[in-house]
């Protein structure tokens, strides 16, 4: 991977600022609702499941498995893999699988978070564990 893609910097907003501030320290955060106990992603201030405002940041281990993926071949910047990854904590999130042989990806494969730099906060991606 000599020709690294340039990723856009997150815009961020007051609701998600903590997520991006933690990303700068290499921490991957999810949100958990203290009222219903459910974790969610991407982070909201009000729980999308029970609508409680008692949501708290929680550091995720950043580990999970590929739920599904697709290798996008028709791309001016070269092939890339979009995927859904189910975190150990429960939530499934949309991402890219990077730094690997895209032809070897499999549903159920274990992956872990890896941050990539931007002109702003780093972005979380996933790579085979």
């Amino acid at each position, binding site marked *: 991977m000599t020709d690294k893609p340039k990723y856009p910097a997150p815009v961020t907003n007051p609701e998600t600022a903590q997520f991006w501030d933690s990303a700068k320290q290499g921490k991957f955060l999810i949100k958990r609702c203290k009222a219903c106990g459910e974790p969610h992603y*991407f982070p909201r201030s009000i729980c999308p*499941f029970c609508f409680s405002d008692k949501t708290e940041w929680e550091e995720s281990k950043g580990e999970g498995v590929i739920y*599904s993926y697709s290798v996008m071949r028709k791309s001016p910047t070269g092939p890339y893999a979009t995927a859904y990854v189910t975190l150990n904590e429960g939530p499934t999130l949309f991402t890219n699988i990077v730094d690997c042989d895209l032809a070897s990806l499999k549903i159920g494969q274990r992956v872990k978070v890896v941050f990539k730099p931007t002109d702003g906060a780093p972005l979380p991606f996933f790579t085979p564990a």
Partner: protein
Amino acid sequence: MTIKNKAYIAGIYEHPTRHAPDKSTAQLHAEVAKGALEDAGLTHADVDGYFCAGDAPGGIWQMSDYLGLNKLRHLDSTETGGCSYIIALGHAAEAIAAGKCSVALITLAGKPRTGPMPPRAYGPEIDFEMAYGPTTHNAYGMCAMRHMHDFGTTSEQLAWVKVAASHHAQYNPHAMLRDVVTVEDVVNSPIISDPLHRLDCCVVSDGGGAVIVTTPEIAKSLKRPLVRLTGHGEAQKGPNGGRKLDLTYSAGVWSGPAAFAEAGITPKDIKYASIYDSFTITVVIQLEDLGFCKKGEGGKFVSDGNLISGVGKLPWNTDGGGLCNNHPINRGGITKIIEAVRQLRGEAHPKVQVPNCDLAVVHGTGGLLGIRHAASTAILERV
């Protein structure tokens, strides 16, 4: 309160163009509106309800002024991508049933082949999705990949959807792709985004379409065959905070049963189906969600020509659909309504006309099936 039998589709028009460098997008909206009103035997002075979506240049007040619709009592610009127009059909029926309008016009038009597509509008998910390059191809690819994983669906099974579309398109002089293709042609075409091949994807075309919805009284005063709406449903589905994500079903699991229940029928009663075919996998998942077969058996259901009119058990998209005929502004909703009305009127091409076609389903999704989308289902009946 129900919309059952309270609204009729009196006019339809599909623009014959598939490439329109010599026309403006607004002009295409006007041309399809004019065509549908003439088909109905009405004039634009009769229109008192207008429905358009994200493809309408500027939005609904700009378009209604441009079109000279000066008697509007009801305006609705619900934007749900390619199924906006099927949702509009239900909303028009609701407005008509409530006495809020009596002649509703629905338009769609655009020129993705000859002009830039408007940028995708992102919401609060922007920082958590945009950088990863979601496109229609990979969003639907992820659905197909999981459907194959969970149910053993194959590329050959998906290919049958395209084969059926091509069999119908050969009889449509306006279709973009009129060559009949084989399963081998589809699976040997290049992969665009795994596991979807180029021939698993619909066409990109300029064009448009329009529909006129009206009261039973007005419809019966006109000279066209009578087609009425007997049931309608709409729903949405997204990643839902990441909880229990399942890409193998769509919001059609809610919109479909709602529409069938309102109409008081079951999928077994349906003679013809217009189902949005943005990709082959879209059709397989929708057939399952609507109840034409069990979840996971859609691949088997579409195989062996089962969607080909005169051959299989469910005649489907007899105009060639989005896969072969037309996909104006990357939105397939309105052409699905139009071909269903042709079938119910007995005005489809004789080679694909379903005999005694008196009951049809129109169904579509909008947005990205693998990310967030809406779905809408309508049941139409010839009176």
